[in-house]
């Protein structure tokens, strides 16, 4: 456990990506099975302990620490796990902690009722850095700036194997990955995976840079589609079994039996999950309601039917066609739709355009008239490559909507920004009153964050715990993708993907937008 705790600390504090990879590679090379496999599972987010929620951990600590002092400390530190690790008042430190493998075993076999005692004793036995690791482990939320991709890159580094070859087998592997390490260390064959029946890492796009990219790209080489406002999914149908995976490989099939049960034919398809009757997508909020539930309710199935708008094909039957060009995959996909009549799948339309200005006009009208997020631009010859390869797929998002809003409340951020006031609630005029319309915590630079933090501290009217109410005098230009009516907000408006576009130090609050002006945006989407 000591080695793993040291690794976590190093990963959390080392800014250099290369040094993180080197540290991971060294850990995987030096640590025996199955500890390294469990470490890999933890780092890639493949493993979590359902038993220990942050609220439970907090309850355990509040048994030992005054709640008011805990609240002040949490407000100061900004990270629950770190607060718990630092504030734990009992220090043993003499008896070694169990190994990572044993620790996970302990978590999984201890009953709910006994869990608090186990965690208390672990926290007391641990040294300070280990205590932090125990808390991180127990909640499963590492948040140390290590992606699954980085961990896999370290495996590639350590073994000399190709990263893509590791990605290929990844979703067919089981924790603690003994067969993977056997292969990586050339002590055995590459693990044999049932390819068709697994989740396959998705191909992602890069944002287009209008000024730099467009003039270099020949429109004839590209195909375009709408960028749909749903969530990206992968449908995997093999020998009668159908799974629906999210972008990260989570099986969300149980929440969407209407889609899963209606899928005809064997294939692995890539598309957008949307909600609406007769293939007419409704607002994202409708989809959100269904995503919020692990299992669909009969009412939702009736009122909010789901469908998948398909745009790519990875496997045709059991044949892996990812190496084929996009045009060929598209032809296979169209043929598949002809062979198998679908009731909850349809094809994503391919847009007609001869030059970039025409596509730009499509993009503008699609956004204004139908609320599309923008367009996707795909190289016709592109194979299906997992990850975010350069130069193959682009997303060309709609121009954002902008509104001038007034800063109302600020809250201390979490994680890396824990000491700064970095979460901002802003509002617009409703008569003589200001009503909140949204919250944003990014869009500004680090330097601007410092300025904002200072502004908040010197313009505070009242503090409510971690939240400060500020003078209503600072205007933000807020960018957002769309606005919807919302019964939950006092203003009746909810913004999609709001971010701070500019800080209008110069603009008086009296000139900020009004709620009436916001209605225009709601009409547009």
């Amino acid at each position, binding site marked *: 456990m000591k080695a793993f705790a040291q690794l976590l600390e190093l990963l959390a*504090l080392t800014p250099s990506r290369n040094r993180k990879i080197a540290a991971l590679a060294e850990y995987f090379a030096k640590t025996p099975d199955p500890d390294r496999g469990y470490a890999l599972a933890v780092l890639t987010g493949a493993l979590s302990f359902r038993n220990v929620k942050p609220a439970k951990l907090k309850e355990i600590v509040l048994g030992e620490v005054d709640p008011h*002092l805990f609240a002040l400390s949490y407000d100061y530190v900004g990270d629950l796990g770190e607060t718990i690790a630092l*504030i734990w008042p009992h220090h043993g430190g003499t008896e070694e902690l169990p190994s990572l493998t044993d620790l996970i075993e302990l978590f999984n076999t201890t009953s709910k009722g006994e869990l608090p005692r186990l965690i208390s004793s672990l926290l007391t036995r641990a040294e300070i850095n280990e205590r932090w690791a125990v808390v991180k482990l127990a909640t499963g939320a590492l948040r140390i700036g290590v992606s699954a991709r980085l961990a896999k890159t370290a495996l590639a580094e350590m073994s000399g194997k190709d990263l893509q070859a590791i990605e290929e087998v990844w979703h067919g592997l089981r924790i603690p990955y003994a067969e993977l390490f056997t292969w990586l260390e050339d002590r055995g064959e590459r693990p044999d995976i049932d390819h068709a029946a697994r989740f396959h890492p998705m191909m992602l796009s890069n944002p287009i840079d209008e000024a730099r990219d467009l003039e270099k790209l020949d429109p004839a080489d590209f195909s375009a589609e709408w960028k749909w406002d749903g969530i990206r999914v992968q449908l995997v149908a093999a020998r009668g079994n159908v799974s629906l995976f999210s972008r990260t490989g989570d099986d969300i099939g149980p929440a969407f039996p209407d889609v899963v049960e209606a899928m005809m034919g064997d294939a692995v398809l890539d598309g957008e999950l949307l909600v609406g009757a007769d293939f007419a997508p409704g607002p994202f909020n409708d989809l959100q309601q269904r995503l919020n539930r692990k299992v669909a309710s009969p009412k939702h199935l009736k009122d909010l039917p789901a469908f998948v708008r398909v745009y790519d094909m990875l496997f045709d039957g059991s044949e892996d066609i990812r190496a084929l060009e996009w045009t060929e995959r598209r032809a296979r996909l169209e043929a598949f739709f002809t062979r198998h009549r679908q009731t909850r799948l349809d094809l994503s339309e391919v847009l007609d355009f001869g030059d970039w200005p025409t596509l730009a006009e499509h993009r503008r009208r699609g956004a204004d008239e139908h609320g599309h997020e923008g367009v996707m631009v795909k190289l016709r010859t592109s194979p299906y490559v997992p990850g975010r390869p350069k130069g193959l797929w682009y997303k060309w998002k709609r121009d954002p909507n902008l509104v001038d809003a007034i800063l109302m409340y600020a809250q201390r951020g979490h994680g*890396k920004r*824990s*000491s700064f006031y970095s979460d901002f609630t802003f509002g617009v005029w409703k008569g003589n009153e200001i009503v909140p319309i949204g919250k944003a915590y990014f869009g500004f630079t680090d330097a601007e964050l410092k300025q904002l933090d200072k502004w908040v501290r010197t313009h505070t009217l009242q503090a409510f715990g971690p939240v400060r109410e500020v003078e209503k005098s600072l205007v933000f230009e807020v960018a957002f993708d769309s606005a919807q009516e919302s019964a939950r907000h006092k203003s009746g408006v909810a913004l999609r993907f709001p971010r701070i576009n500019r800080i209008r130090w110069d603009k008086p609050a009296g000139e900020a937008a009004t709620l009436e002006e916001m209605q225009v945006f709601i009409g547009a989407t």
Partner: protein
Amino acid sequence: MASPLLDRHLHLKAIDTFIDPVQPRERAIITHGHADHARSGHGAVLATPDTIAIMKTRYGEACAGSFQPVEYGEPVSIDDVRITLHPAGHVLGSAQVLIEHRGQRVVVTGDYKRLPDRTAAPFELVPCDLLVTEATFGLPVFQHPAPSDEIARLVRSLEANPDRAHLIGAYALGKAQRVISLLREGGHDAPIYLHGALLRLCALYEERGIPLGDLRPATGVAKPELAGRVVIAPPSALKDRWSRRLPDPVLAMASGWMSVKQRARQRGVELPLIISDHADWNELRETIADTGAETIWVTHGREDALVYHCRQQGLVAEPLNIQGYEEGEEDER
């Protein structure tokens, strides 16, 4: 909660003297040389000889109208008020101020710590009725580890990275000399390289009888020579152009704040060294109890939690909220 002797601005009305005033005053008692306690421009300054030497080094010979050096434990009477300075263990020359007046005893701690430190006279407990305590680390999340453990981590990192310099951010007065002294105590005899901003104060410490070993200016030293070496600079130089002269430096910082990993991350610190010159939460609580004071005024830091704690213990406690001590001047601790 007024005391007839001392008001909330640490003004001793009877003798019109302020303790650590932020504004220039006619008469001031200075607890120690850090910039948020010692400012230039006062009329008459009463302080320990070391603190006076530090003030003159930092601000110039003429930084106050006149100086009255007072040794630890030697009472000075002004009218019917008696002032005695006692060691605070914070940095060289740091003092607590004991004020006695008609049987009432008031102690202003200034900044203090109780852990042993070869660069400062050890803290003395001074019983009193009213205690004005600092609260820099006044939250229960601050439980400082043993400094020797932190130095051991530094030494391990030096051994593991022989091709990289170790650049330690440490405040120029007190922390830098403490880190050097701890390294020497831990057996590190190699030359230690200094940023120009630390040279004068390190020389002053040596002059005042605190040996720091082989110190050299980092400026002008060829890059490869600094591989595997310890270089100390003010925290502001960590991310500065200045650090480019070093071979692939491991950025370290010596500060009590480094216990919070998120803070270390924000500053890009790879090797946080939790070395503090302030009392941690446990020391603060012990000290409050040990002085026997029934009234506690809390200043400089996270007052809320310490005030709350004192009240839980049945003591009368108030935060002072003195203007001019910014939240965020964290480099100095």
